[in-house]
């Protein structure tokens, strides 16, 4: 056997377990979703072919529309806020000062705790009237605001908690990116009389573009399909009040497992997958062939 051949065979053997696993547990489900989407599946394992009925159902589904709206609002609020907050934190803890280790850890700590625990913590802090936050706000006359019980506030509360949870992680990403900004370039700019804003605008910012791009893409995908879109709302509000925090992924879960509409849930899954594929294609197009591969 030629060396080339041997090398190739070895490579396939090394790749086999993970590739097979990804095929069965990631690729197959996506394909399967497109199959099940054409069936009406009741909660007892009975399948009935219904053609495009599940897709037609979506058009008149107000709850789906509401969930799409929730996810959209969540994305356009969470992504920029998390971006600004974590970037500010990164700038804050960029240069050494006394106790910097603990400060960085403190910002990251919420991310270590599970989303279930995060949900429980905030439920407790936000209990109506008796919770810590209500007591804190009582002197301002805001003691009986129901943060998780008022639809207009619940979504905002969910955004704030998400930011609190993820800011430390994104801060580390920014810190890693800031490491690539050469110190002497900044120093040179300072000597040339650039103000701190100018140094930021013309030296740091351009060099941070790739990192920023990664953060935005990553947090957008996370906001739509990440665990934060399920675990956190599931524990915190179960999608309530009045569906104000019902994200798309939570809605799909409910359709599948609470109302037993597996077929409809599969159809919804295909739509989300299609949107993802579209976005990915778009992203690859914009970044000319994908920034993941640095070869």
């Amino acid at each position, binding site marked *: 056997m030629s060396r080339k051949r*041997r*090398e*190739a065979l*070895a*490579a*396939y053997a*090394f*790749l086999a*377990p*993970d590739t097979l*696993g*990804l095929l069965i547990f*990631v690729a*197959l*489900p*996506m394909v*399967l*979703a497109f199959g099940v989407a054409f069936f009406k599946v009741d909660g007892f394992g009975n399948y009935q072919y219904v053609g495009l009925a599940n897709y037609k159902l979506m058009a008149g589904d107000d709850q789906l529309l509401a969930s799409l709206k929730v996810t959209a609002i969540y994305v356009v609020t969470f992504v920029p806020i998390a971006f600004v907050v974590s970037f500010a934190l990164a700038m*804050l803890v960029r240069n050494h*000062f006394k106790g*910097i280790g603990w400060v960085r*850890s403190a*910002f990251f700590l919420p991310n*270590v*705790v*599970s989303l*279930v*625990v995060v949900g429980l*913590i*905030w439920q*407790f*802090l936000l*209990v109506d009237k008796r919770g*810590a936050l209500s*007591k*804190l706000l009582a002197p301002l006359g805001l003691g009986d605001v129901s943060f998780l019980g008022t639809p207009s506030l619940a979504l905002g509360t969910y955004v704030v908690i998400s930011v609190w949870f993820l*800011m430390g992680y994104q801060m*580390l*990403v920014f810190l*890693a990116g800031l*490491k690539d900004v050469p110190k002497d370039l900044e120093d040179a700019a300072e000597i040339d009389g650039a103000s701190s804003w100018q140094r930021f605008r013309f030296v740091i910012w351009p060099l941070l573009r790739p*990192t920023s791009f990664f953060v935005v893409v990553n947090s957008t*995908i*996370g906001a739509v399909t*990440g*665990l934060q*879109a399920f*675990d956190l709302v*599931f*524990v915190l509000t179960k999608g309530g009040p009045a569906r104000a925090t019902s994200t798309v992924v939570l809605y*799909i879960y409910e359709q*599948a*497992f609470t109302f037993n509409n*597996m077929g409809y*849930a599969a159809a919804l*899954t295909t739509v*989300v*997958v299609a949107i993802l594929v579209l976005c990915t294609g778009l992203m690859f197009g914009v970044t000319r062939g994908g920034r*993941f*591969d640095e070869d």
Partner: protein
Amino acid sequence: MRIRILPIVAHVLAIIAVLPLLWIVISALKPVEDVFDFGWPSTWTLDNLQYVLLKIPMPRFMLNSAIVSVAVTVIALFFHSMAAYALARLRFPGRGIIFSGIMSTLLVSLPVILVPLFLVAKQLGLLDSYAGLIVPSIFHAFGIFLLRQYYLNIPRELEEAADLDGCGYWRRYWSVILPLSRPVLASLSVLFFLANWNAFLWPLTITRNPDLRVIQLGVSGMQGQYASAWNLILAAAVIAAVPTVVVFVAGQKRLVDAMKTTGLK
């Protein structure tokens, strides 16, 4: 002036950031009637923690989570390093396609494919079993990507020395690459352990047997059974969080290293 203020601001913000966590720990140590009291507890008690550990099968939940997290971490690191080795160091037809294929799965998260994945697991007879908790959680492109980045940076000479000794690819992987990847494997094991210990959605979807409950299910289930007993719920939450905080503190440097190495995470 600015230089002196910023560290103070940072410290204050850091305290605010951890305050909610701190508040929960304190509240878990309060007697039941004081749990909503807004202030330093007048008396401290370990009753809540004791109750949760002794009267509720919390140790069992933790054991289940430990089994699953450790199993997934070990198996995943093994598989991922193998795949990454091939992608980074070996030449073979279809490498580009396979790599892109693997990377594209990065965009697919569990919540998206939950429903069909459940059907797959059902067909494979994985529901309500340790295998069901472990196997589907192993496969994730992130680890492969990270390890590949790392392997790309290992000097070729090291491997070539082994080649001269007549070692096959397996031996090269096993005796050269794997030992060299100890630091990155350590970093990844911290990440993987945390992710699996904190896993909720998948166990929620496929397990019903109370003996298979993992810690996150156990804690969230407290809300159903002890809805009014915030002291117990918080005690359980604290117990669920302690191992993650310990792992984080112990592996903190590695975690940050992992992010630096790749510049990605």
